[in-house]
């Protein structure tokens, strides 16, 4: 890792914020270590449980703020699945809603200053994306049998082109979990690194530090937007993949 210190106190370490540290005791990290990633994932789950359990406990006709947030999130994902994957996709509503709310809350928790963004780690997003990929593939074969392979055989194309298209489709199918996970992690990581780079400028500029601080504020606003949009994109791509498993013919 390039970590040479430049002179004049001008040192930017934009990637240091993503370091996984053990919270109790030093030493190497084992699978059972309680790290900052564990802590913030736990906090995300706690926040989701609080929102959904406390928010919907009273079930008032005139909802409180918390209840209407919970209802909006529920209705939003429900409608998304219905629009993209059809009525049959609603079987997977609990899974997709879990993904959406976990990614959304993790993204937003990561925006708190000094916090740790779990979704900026490819290890985390790859697990989520691999889960989606395996679910969709296994369910596709379970539901359609060998007809699921029709996904790769583009019957609307000329016959001579079909084998070539089949190879392309096959490759793009297996790249899906990669792009699905890297899109989320990359977006979140890039945004946070940009904020850190600007923070490094602010440290070096002395009296002119106001300029980068204004830009940090602007980038932060953009990051709030990105956090929401990336959770949305992650979920809607899950729905698109699910739709492929449900209706594999081209």
């Amino acid at each position: 890792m390039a970590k040479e210190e430049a002179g004049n106190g001008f040192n930017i370490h934009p990637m240091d914020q993503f370091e996984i540290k053990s919270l109790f005791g030093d030493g190497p990290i084992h699978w059972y270590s309680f790290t900052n990633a564990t802590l913030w994932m736990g906090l995300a789950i706690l926040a989701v449980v609080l929102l959904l359990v406390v928010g919907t406990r009273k079930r008032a006709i005139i909802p409180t703020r918390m209840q209407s947030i919970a209802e909006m999130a529920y209705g939003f994902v429900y409608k998304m699945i219905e629009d993209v994957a059809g009525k049959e996709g609603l079987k997977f509503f609990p899974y997709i809603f879990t993904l959406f709310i976990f990614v959304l809350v993790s993204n937003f928790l990561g925006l708190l200053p000094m916090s740790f963004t779990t979704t900026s780690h490819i290890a985390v997003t790859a697990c989520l994306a691999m889960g989606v990929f395996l679910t969709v593939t296994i369910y596709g074969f379970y539901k359609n049998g060998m007809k699921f392979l029709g996904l790769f055989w583009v019957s609307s194309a000329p016959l001579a082109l079909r084998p070539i298209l089949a190879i392309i489709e096959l490759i793009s199918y297996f790249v899906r979990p990669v792009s699905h996970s890297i899109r989320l992690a990359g977006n979140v990581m890039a945004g946070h690194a940009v904020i850190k780079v600007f923070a490094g400028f602010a440290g070096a500029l002395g009296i002119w530090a106001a300029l980068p601080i204004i830009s940090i504020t602007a980038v932060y606003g953009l990051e709030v937007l990105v956090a929401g949009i990336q959770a949305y994109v992650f979920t809607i791509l899950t729905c698109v993949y699910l739709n492929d498993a449900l209706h594999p013919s081209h």
Partner: protein
Amino acid sequence: MEGNIAELGQYIGAGLACIGMGGAGIGVGTVAGNFLSGALRNPAAAGAQTATLFIGIAFAEALGIFSFLVALLLMFAV
């Protein structure tokens, strides 16, 4: 002016990888711009197509994220 030639290649490669992000920028701009021009012609149909818009943007953007990842790998992992 002393240094490691591998490190030189690492930095140059990371810089070159960033060109790919420009391609992603063009792609995302094309998707959003065409959506807007279509949406202004037929605003009634635009609302139902926002999901398609975001899917298109996500696919166009993924390749830019790949090049960003290559740059990151060259800088920090190689």
